[in-house]
């Protein structure tokens, strides 16, 4: 292993300024949306008393999962001691921090009372998995910051593996907590299952690695940093395994539901008769987000091309967002069984057709995208200020014994 040197990006290119301008623009749009939602109330969103969590939550949970998963690369480097990943560890931890800040910003700005954030931070109900998550998210930011400090300061490097192990454990607990937000809901048939936690862990790993690969490819393209085939090969193969891993948990989740007679209704809804949810499940998640990326990553015809790696990563993200949309919004849109064995023949609310439909408003989409913009802005600013990027990622610069 050679000594890798790190540098700040020059920050003079068109892509750098373009990235900053675009992300600031979307952040401002998001803040404008949040102001309107706060001023007029959630009446301007598509959310209602049935679908209480909408598009902002899909984006927020996507970013939170990605934040946890993007730490993969640093964990493989410091916990599993794979030297090939060492030069990328700094960027990995940086992305974990920025993505989480992006996700939490969306979550907070969507609250009915975002001005009461201090209450959320000071008044805890310790039985609530949501309260646990607040602590896990804040703790994760702290753990990652310390991890990064130990990683970057030479005198603290002996503590670096310990910090890496703590961060690795923390993020597994964090994603377990995020999955359990749904797993602990007894009221809704689509949730209330322990498999939500491992499913969310697997999803976080695949989303995180996909985002990391995209950022790495874009960054190396923008800075003309040489990126070796060897360093790309390992995460590329790992991404394929993780996409397959998510599919395994999704399969077990649906098989379990299909086995329970009482849950056939919700399965029929998601798999066959749910409109947008069915389309997103089969088209978005299964075809675009699972089959295509695996094909692009493993088929000999595509596997050598960087474009196919970038496409596979992008499709994994599209698939992940589709799956989250189906789980989060589809799970709420399916009516609850309040009266088993009975059919509702009249109710002003319970059998209103508009009650169960959800169409995201432009405000929600603006707010959601601003979370990605916040993460992008913070990442670009950080790599401009501090040396996160290795000067070269050519295979022989990382490992002189590399033979291709």
């Amino acid at each position, binding site marked *: 292993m050679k000594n890798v040197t790190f540098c700040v990006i020059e920050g003079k290119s068109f892509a750098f300024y373009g990235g900053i301008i675009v992300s600031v623009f979307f952040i401002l749009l998001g803040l404008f949306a949040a102001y309107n939602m706060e001023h007029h109330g959630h009446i301007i969103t598509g959310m209602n008393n*049935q679908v209480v969590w909408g598009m902002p939550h899909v984006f927020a949970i996507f970013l939170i999962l990605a934040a946890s998963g993007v730490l993969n690369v640093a964990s493989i480097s410091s916990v599993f001691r794979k030297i090939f990943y060492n030069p990328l560890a700094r960027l990995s931890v940086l992305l974990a921090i920025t993505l989480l800040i992006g996700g939490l910003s969306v979550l907070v700005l969507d609250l009915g*009372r975002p001005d009461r954030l201090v209450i959320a931070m000071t008044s805890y109900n310790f039985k609530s998995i949501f*309260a646990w998550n607040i602590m896990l998210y804040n703790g994760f930011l702290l753990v990652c910051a310390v991890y990064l400090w130990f990683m970057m300061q030479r005198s603290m490097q002996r503590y670096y593996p310990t910090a890496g192990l703590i961060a690795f454990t923390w993020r597994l607990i964090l994603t377990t907590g995020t999955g359990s937000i749904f797993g602990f809901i007894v*009221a809704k048939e689509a949730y209330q299952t322990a498999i939500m936690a491992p499913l969310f862990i697997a999803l976080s790993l695949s989303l995180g690695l996909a985002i990391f690969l995209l950022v790495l490819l874009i960054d190396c393209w923008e800075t003309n940093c040489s990126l070796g085939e060897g360093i790309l090969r390992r995460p590329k193969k790992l991404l394929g395994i993780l996409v397959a891993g998510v599919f395994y948990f999704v399969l077990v989740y649906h098989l379990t539901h299909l086995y329970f007679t009482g849950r056939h209704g919700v399965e029929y809804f998601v798999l066959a008769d749910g409109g947008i949810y069915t389309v997103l499940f089969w088209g978005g998640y299964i075809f675009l987000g699972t089959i295509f990326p695996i094909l692009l990553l493993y088929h000999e015809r595509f596997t050598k091309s960087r474009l196919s790696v970038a496409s596979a990563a992008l499709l994994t993200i599209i698939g992940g967002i589709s799956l989250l949309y189906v789980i989060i919004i589809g799970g709420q849109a399916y009516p609850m069984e309040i009266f088993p064995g009975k059919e509702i023949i009249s109710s002003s609310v319970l059998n209103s057709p508009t009650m169960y439909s959800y169409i995201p408003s432009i405000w929600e989409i603006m707010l959601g995208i601003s979370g990605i913009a916040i993460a992008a802005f913070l990442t670009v600013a950080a790599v401009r200020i501090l040396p996160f990027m290795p000067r070269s990622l050519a295979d022989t610069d990382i490992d002189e014994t590399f033979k291709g």
Partner: protein
Amino acid sequence: MNVSIQNRRSFLKKSAAITIAPGVLLYSISQAHHAEKPVKSTTRWGMLIDTNKCVGDCTGCVDACTEEHNLTEDVPVEIKPTWIRKVTLRDKQTGRESSLPIMCQHCENPPCVDVCPTGASFKRDDGIVIVDRHICIGCRYCMMACPYKARSFVHEALENQKPHSPRGKGTVEACNFCVYRIDTGVGPACVEACETEGHQAIIYGDMNDPDSAINQKLKEVSSSVLRPDLKLNPGIRYQGL
């Protein structure tokens, strides 16, 4: 002669009304729970709803709740605050129809209280589940968790609120069992409305008090709760469902 007897009877009736009514009133006030005193965990407020007496097209309880808490926003049904709703059901096997109101079930083990991150959703010692509007951050997790779809989110700014039932944009709300009335010895508005309509389909009271009407009725008739499989032990029970 007849006129004088009638006058005497009328005089006695009025005298009785004038003397007994304040006595009954004073007695009920003296027996009422004092609003300043802490509630007791020995009390468990509850309702027994007789679906055989509940009339399908009557919305007296819903109207009374709307009036009592000023739930008058002119918004689409999917975002309209609904603390109580009327439902007509048909048994899939037998075809038997029944009508009933459904509101917050004031569970003994409320999922909304379990999941609330700040503790804004809480259960009083006397079993009433309410939301502390001062610390509700509007995350809506309680709405996800409620198996009875009993909670509403205030989607827009409110006007002309009732001082006894404050509400707030961006917070979650649900039936509060007219807690301020209960604390002064008066029954919930929906119960009163049902009596006024002449149906008397709802009995309310302390389910733990062996002398209460609800306690005695629950001993006498077979009642059920909604979603008994969840083992939440709701305070709202249904007869004839």
